[in-house]
């Protein structure tokens, strides 16, 4: 069954002041996929996510979601149409309870009516959040905070989930749980685009991947193909 294109980024340039962070970047995410965006520090991965989320706007090119151009929208509008970003560093609200963090996730109009339903789903995915629901978010461990960030993102009832460096500072065991959760999230029909520095793990979890260097996409394709690519093997696996 052919998958429809959910997100289409076409040839965008993004500047931070006079510094060009993204050069002619294109990317496609199809409905139901898990896509990885891989690259080292300062390769432009976060900038790309921020452009999709509307926190920065492309100087050239376009970003389309479900066929509609979203490049000029404000960040809060982009959440409403179904794109939710889990930012780098989690950025949960430290002085609010776990439950309040989740509730604020459902702030946008569309998500409010489905709040209880989504809350139940989040508790099923991450039972620890239910346990700690009245604790202040800053008292949670790193892994729990990441779960909270994920849960909070899910509360906005997204069609597309953007994850920025989920694995930063987390132990492998915790990561396994998180990736398992991602797979379950995909089962529920939510598409995922995640940014990672850890190449090997990314290629294990994703369907397709894009590799970025210094603001450009240098490689892309199905992960099976990419694993075989000579350049990838040399650059990232040292073979």
């Amino acid at each position, binding site marked *: 069954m052919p998958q429809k294109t959910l997100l289409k980024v076409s040839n965008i340039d993004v500047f931070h002041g006079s510094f060009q962070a993204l050069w002619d970047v294109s990317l496609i995410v199809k409905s139901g996929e898990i896509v990885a965006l891989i690259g080292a520090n300062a390769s432009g991965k976060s900038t790309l996510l921020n452009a999709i*989320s509307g*926190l920065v706007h492309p100087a050239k090119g376009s970003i389309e979601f479900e066929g509609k151009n979203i490049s000029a929208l*404000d*960040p*809060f509008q982009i*959440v*409403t149409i179904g794109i*939710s*970003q889990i*930012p780098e560093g989690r*950025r*949960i*609200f*430290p*002085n*609010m309870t776990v439950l*309040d963090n989740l*509730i*604020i*996730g459902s*702030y*946008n109009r569309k*998500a*409010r009516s489905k709040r209880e339903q989504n809350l139940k789903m989040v508790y099923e995915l991450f039972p620890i959040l239910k346990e700690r629901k009245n604790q202040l978010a800053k008292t949670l461990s790193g892994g729990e905070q990441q779960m909270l960030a994920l849960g*909070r993102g899910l509360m*906005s009832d997204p069609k597309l989930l953007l994850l920025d460096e989920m694995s930063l500072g987390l132990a492998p065991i915790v990561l396994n749980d998180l990736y398992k959760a991602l797979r379950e999230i995909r089962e529920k029909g939510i598409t995922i685009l995640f940014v990672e520095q850890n190449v090997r793990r990314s290629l294990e979890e994703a369907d397709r991947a894009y590799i970025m260097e210094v603001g450009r996409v240098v490689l892309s394709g199905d992960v099976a193909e990419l694993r075989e690519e000579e350049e990838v093997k040399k650059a990232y696996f040292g073979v």
Partner: protein
Amino acid sequence: MEVLAGLSTPIVMGILLGGLYTLIALGLSLVFGVMKVINVAHGDLVVFGSYLAFAAMTMLGIDPVLSLVMGIPLLFAIGFGVQRFLLNRAFAVSLDAALLVCFGISIIFQNFCQIIWTPFSRGLRPPYALESFSVGVVHIPLVYLLDFVAALVVMLFLREFLRRTYLGKAINAASQDRGAAHLMGINTGRVYAFAFAIAMTFAAIAGVFLGLTYPFTPTSGVAFLIIAFGVVIVGGLGSILGTFIGGMVFGLAQTLGGYFLGAVAQMLVAYILVFVILAVRPQGIFGR
């Protein structure tokens, strides 16, 4: 025992007066906590609220507290407009620019009141303003008790609002991490406007009770800004309870200062207290 009996009135009055100062400071605290800027026009806006109630009383014969039915929506709208059209834009320039814009607004309101109501000292004096009552040896004007009750009511409202409503949580979130709040689908520009508007309704309420408690002139605002600032600093950012305690600290400072040093020294005591607090512990006692 004589001394204690003599002191008991100023102590009780100081605590009750703390209610007035809490009322005045709550609006300032809300704006400071959310937008990280001290609205230097706050005192003048509170006094503007006093003048609105005065106008309602003298022109329409309405009781000041009842006049809040009109005063609150009016100040809410003014606050919303100021934040949305002036301050949001000023923030985009710089934090200092926002400070100066607030200062400009302060001058505007001061002189607006002066033009319309002249520099004459005014007061809100409905019949009950002159009543007082006694509890044992303590003899208190009724308005002080009203100040205290009003403060409790407003604090309760604010706490429940921040806890239970989406907008309240959004305000809380935006004050902790603006960027993350964006990613939750929160329109922070509009949330800020609402926060400021709510702060202005508190100013309207504070204005009414200020007018019932003290006489006021168009330039009274600065004095109350300074006290409100002191209250906010003592209480620390983000703490309603802290603001309440700060209010009582200043209420007591004034009444005890007046008791020991005479009525004229009251403001001086408060100012010096603010200065001392700034010098010693600007981050407050309760703040995060």
